[in-house]
């Protein structure tokens, strides 16, 4: 289906807006502001006229107030006339729990102040109530809300879903007039998918059709996000506020030469640079890409500059406790912190006070994210955001330079909204069945109104119903059916007395990740705790793997309970990078831009323009300083003369023989595409050669290592049409499918995290899902939740659609494949090979392997015996 294009909202006239404001609201507004902001000029009238609208604006443009202004105005009018009803007029849902301050500034304080004005004037107003309902709201507060319903309800997507099944609360929803979805750009995930159905359910419950207002940071594509906001068959306006804060963006390297400088110097000069930047500004936020890096940066800064950083530095990331995070946010607002290091948790609109510098340590992996992060600096509209990219290696340098260019030119990469997620669907159908009895057709039609399920097939819908009704089971009596489905009457309803409790305690779409302590298993310091790794990482490593934690190498041995036992004093190279599981993938759009830059560079070298001219070109193209351009020049110079420069129109395939046979693909399409592409090729090669293949994947390409690598045969077999089928087979036995299956099983409530008040450990969930998966594999390959796990791997984790596109380019000759042999990995290949493998494709039959090993062992034994003789 083609994307619907929505009309753009027009700027409305100042007088027109003032004309609809209640005198109290008008007086309050102009006591605070002299004029309406751009987003207010776009939004206030449209909300007043009850039109659905998506407002996309950079931070600091008064979006939140835009959405509330018209609504407050409406409620004040009612309050003045004493016509306020005991019902919820407006629901405000935000993915953030910690929005208190933002809500205070944009809703509670305005309300207080308006009431104050009214009091002075002797105007009697009915009390307008604002209620907060999140996972932290106490039972007492919920009870209070039922007695005196808030007119404006502040909530999260999860809490909204719970209230939609709570009998008494539903009554308060009987006539909701407005729904505001904040930070909608951060909902391109299953949380958003989930919310999209909740909104349809709300619409079903409410007698009035609530106006939908979406608030977003700069995002693309706007039409898709608008469609996601309003669902199918509804109108929407799009307001795109371009004017934001001015940005001052630069790329910095700590050293002259990123490759010649030894690691220690690189390290100390990078921190030196960061220290200089921090010291010359008032308050700095440093963004890294992983939680592990966040901790590392804090401890390095403290170690290297103990006199400067002690109480005034802290970390903020999602693995830290809520108390810790709130505390950090408070100290930021109070100006007590000089510097905060974070991963992604401070990207969203949490109010953190005045920040004058943002440092991006390592590439933010996409231009939207870069802008979002940089936009955290200088919160007020007319401030200048200062953003500094500090690069860590040469690939990072090129990536950051191009991302900085995109950010300066305000070019935004597109978000991905998952579709037809059957696990989320299961949870929602269960919730709907708890709410009331449904007619099958009515339910299906409601679901299809959500943008994310507009193409939901009847088959998928029915297979979810079958699963929930317990029809898939082998042994009926052991299976806990969650709903009943009457084939005669086509009615669907809940089953079991505990349904509501199970639903409410297990709801949500964010997979539970836990952390595992790493403990020394022997030698000096036996039993001592070294640190933590996340469970996702634990699932990646095998006994014997070497990884780095806190700058030291350890060999993983075994796990026991929630502890991972390791050996220290390892000299071997790491076999697996420890940040792997939480790496952000480079966006496809930004990757293509880097590919285009590479192509331009290739052309310059081919024209033999000379060093000065090429450096000049880089400076102009990337708006960067001379030393940065020089470093980029050197990197490309080496690649050009050693091998070839791969670019947007050419994938270089490099073959070399190291300890193993290596084939390196320089395919700069981001990890999501490379993941899919490499696995498909590896699978085909494995089929031909019958041996296992090691795969290493990065944003810039991938490599294979193994004994036999029949690459040409594999490439002939692969085409855009058979890609999905090949990948379906290729991921069949992978760890990643198992892990995603566990998440999907938890989301679809196959595995209950919480049952009768008892919490199930992640370890137990893992075991359950392991057995569940092997059972399901025997029942049906099309079991909906397994199908969903596969979809999630192929469409959300990987990007099968873009991979298809790349294959089409190759088929049509738009992108050529160029094979070369090298004696050593080329400069561009170095980081990729050094990073180590990400997965091992198992092909060879276990028994064949056994026979082969047996032969070899026998040979050894015979040799030994001969020697003895």
């Amino acid at each position, binding site marked *: 289906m083609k994307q619907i294009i929505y009309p753009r909202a027009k700027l409305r006239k100042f007088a027109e807006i003032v004309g609809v404001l209640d005198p109290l609201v008008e007086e309050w507004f102009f006591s605070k502001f002299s004029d309406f902001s751009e987003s207010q000029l776009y939004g206030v009238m449209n909300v007043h006229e009850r039109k659905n609208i998506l407002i996309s604006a950079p931070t600091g443009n008064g979006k939140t107030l835009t959405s509330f202004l018209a609504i407050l105005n409406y409620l004040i009018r009612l309050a003045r006339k004493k016509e306020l009803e005991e019902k919820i007029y407006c629901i405000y849902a935000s993915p953030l729990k910690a929005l208190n301050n933002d809500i205070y500034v944009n809703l509670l304080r305005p309300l207080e102040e308006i009431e104050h004005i009214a009091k002075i004037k002797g105007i009697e107003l009915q009390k307008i109530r604002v209620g907060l309902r999140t996972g932290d709201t106490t039972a007492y507060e919920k009870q209070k809300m039922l007695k005196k319903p808030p007119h404006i309800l502040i909530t999260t997507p999860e809490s909204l879903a719970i209230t939609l099944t709570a009998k008494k609360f539903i009554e308060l929803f009987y006539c909701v007039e407005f729904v505001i979805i904040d930070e909608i750009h951060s909902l391109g995930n299953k949380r958003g998918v989930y919310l999209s159905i909740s909104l349809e359910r709300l619409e079903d419950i409410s007698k009035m059709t609530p106006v939908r207002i979406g608030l977003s940071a700069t995002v693309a594509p706007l039409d898709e996000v608008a469609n996601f906001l309003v669902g199918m068959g509804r109108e929407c306006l799009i307001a795109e506020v371009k004017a934001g804060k001015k940005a001052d963006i630069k790329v910095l390297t700590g050293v002259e030469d990123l490759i010649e400088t030894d690691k220690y110097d690189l390290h100390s000069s990078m921190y030196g640079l960061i220290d200089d930047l921090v010291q010359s500004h008032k308050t700095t936020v440093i963004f890294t890409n992983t939680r592990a890096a966040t901790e590392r940066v804090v401890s390095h800064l403290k170690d290297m500059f103990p006199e400067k950083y002690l109480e005034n530095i802290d970390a903020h990331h999602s693995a830290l406790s809520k108390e810790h995070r709130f505390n950090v946010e408070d100290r930021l607002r109070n100006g007590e912190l000089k510097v905060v290091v974070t991963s992604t948790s401070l990207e969203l609109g949490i109010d953190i006070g005045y920040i004058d510098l943002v440092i991006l340590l390592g590439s933010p992996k996409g231009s939207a994210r870069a802008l979002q992060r940089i936009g955290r600096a200088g919160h007020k509209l007319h401030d200048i955001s200062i953003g500094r990219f500090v690069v860590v290696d040469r690939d990072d340098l090129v990536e950051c330079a191009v991302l900085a260019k995109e950010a300066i030119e305000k070019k935004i990469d597109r978000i991905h909204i998952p579709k037809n997620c059957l696990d989320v669907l299961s949870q929602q159908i269960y919730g709907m069945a708890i709410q009331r009895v449904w007619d099958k057709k009515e339910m299906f039609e409601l679901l299809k109104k959500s943008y994310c399920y507009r193409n939901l097939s009847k088959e998928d819908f029915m297979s979810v119903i079958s699963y929930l009704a*317990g029809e898939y*089971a*082998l*042994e009926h009596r*052991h*299976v*806990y059916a969650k709903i009943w489905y009457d084939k005669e009457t086509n009615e669907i309803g809940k089953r079991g007395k505990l349904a509501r409790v199970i639903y409410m305690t297990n709801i949500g779409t964010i997979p539970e990740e836990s952390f595992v302590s790493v403990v020394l*298993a*022997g030698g000096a310091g036996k039993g001592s705790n070294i640190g933590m790794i996340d469970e996702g990482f634990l699932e990646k490593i*095998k*006994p*014997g793997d070497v990884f780095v934690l806190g700058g030291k190498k350890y*060999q993983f*041995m*075994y796990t026991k309970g929630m502890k991972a*036992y390791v*050996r220290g004093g390892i000299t071997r190279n790491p076999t697996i990078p420890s940040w792997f599981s939480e790496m952000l993938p480079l966006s496809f759009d930004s990757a293509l831009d880097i590919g285009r830059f590479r192509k331009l560079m290739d052309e310059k070298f081919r024209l033999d323009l000379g060093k000065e001219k090429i450096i000049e070109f880089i400076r102009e193209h990337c708006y960067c300083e001379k030393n940065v351009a020089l470093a980029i020049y050197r990197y490309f110079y080496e690649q050009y003369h050693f091998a070839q420069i791969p670019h947007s129109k050419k994938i270089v395939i490099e073959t070399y023989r190291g300890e*193993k046979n290596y084939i390196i693909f320089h395919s700069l399409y981001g990890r999501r595409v490379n993941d899919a592409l490499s696995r498909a090729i590896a699978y085909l090669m494995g089929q031909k050669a019958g*041996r*296992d293949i*090691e795969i290493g994947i990065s944003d810039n390409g991938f490599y294979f290592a*193994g*004994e036999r690598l029949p690459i040409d045969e594999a490439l002939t077999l692969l085409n855009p049409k058979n890609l999905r089928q090949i990948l379906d087979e290729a991921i069949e036995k992978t760890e990643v499918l198992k892990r995603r299956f566990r998440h999907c099983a938890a989301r679809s409530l*196959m*595995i*209950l995290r919480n*049952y009768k008040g008892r919490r*199930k450990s992640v370890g*137990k969930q893992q*075991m*359950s899902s392991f*057995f*569940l998966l*092997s*059972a399901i594999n*025997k*029942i049906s390959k099309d079991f909906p939740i397994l199908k969903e796990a596969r979809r999630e791997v192929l469409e959300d984790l990987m990007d099968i659609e873009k991979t298809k596109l790349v294959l089409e380019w190759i088929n049509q000759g738009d992108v050529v494949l160029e094979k070369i042999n090298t004696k050593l990995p080329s400069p561009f290949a170095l980081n990729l090979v050094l990073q180590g493998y990400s997965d*091992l494709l*198992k092909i*060879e039959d*276990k*028994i064949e*392997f*056994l*026979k*082969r*090993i*047996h032969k*070899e*062992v026998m040979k*050894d*034994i015979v040799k030994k015996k001969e020697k003895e003789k």
Partner: protein
Amino acid sequence: MKNRAKIEVCEDSLLIDKKILVFGDVHLGLEESISSRHGFPRLHLKELSEKVNRIFTALKKRKIKITKIIILGDLKHDFGSVTISEWGDVRKFLQKLITFIDGDQEDKLIIVKGNHDNYLNTITRKENIKLVQNYVYKDVCFLHGHEMYQECLNKDIKCLILSHLHPAIIFDDGYKSEKFKCFLKGKWNKKMVYVMPGFSLMSIGFSLNEVIDKDYKNKNDDFFIINNKDLQKLEVIVYNNKDGEEYNFGKLKNL
């Protein structure tokens, strides 16, 4: 010499004198102890039955009739008590086994008690099955392996058959690493010993040759009656179900 029993390997079990079948560590109920009951179809019993069918089909082809089955301990998993599904599963499994045994003699089915088999007597009493700490046939003594008994050290006993250890072996050629169930066989305390792999389908077992498990085992030297040092002297045998072949990999210490 006429009292020597003949022992051969037969898919995770041993065949004695072509008439007695022995296997151990079935761990019925393991599934339940680690998974939630809700929405979870239990398959272990079904798969175990299939495995037993497969073994007996193969034996039938060779015209071998089994007159006795010895279960070498840990028939059930749960230490504490007999859970409802274990009751059902254990009884079903035992009833199934009995149908495969030829003849009408006493003690067709013998269960040697393992460390997990507390409370098992409530079931065996009902089914009229002999539950013992160890069992002697000719010169062979069968015991689970978590504890040693005086009578098993008798001079007339030439061979010990043990379970409990769940031995497995990891092969790694630098490209690939796989784990296999294995038998251990060799001399110990002047007797021949056989250590059987676990019969359970839920896990392959503890690998004996990987660094990890070596350290792990050292800590638990009293886990098994044969200590780790002596285990190293035993030979590793992997049985290939597909074509019924045995592969002897030589002594564990060399792997």
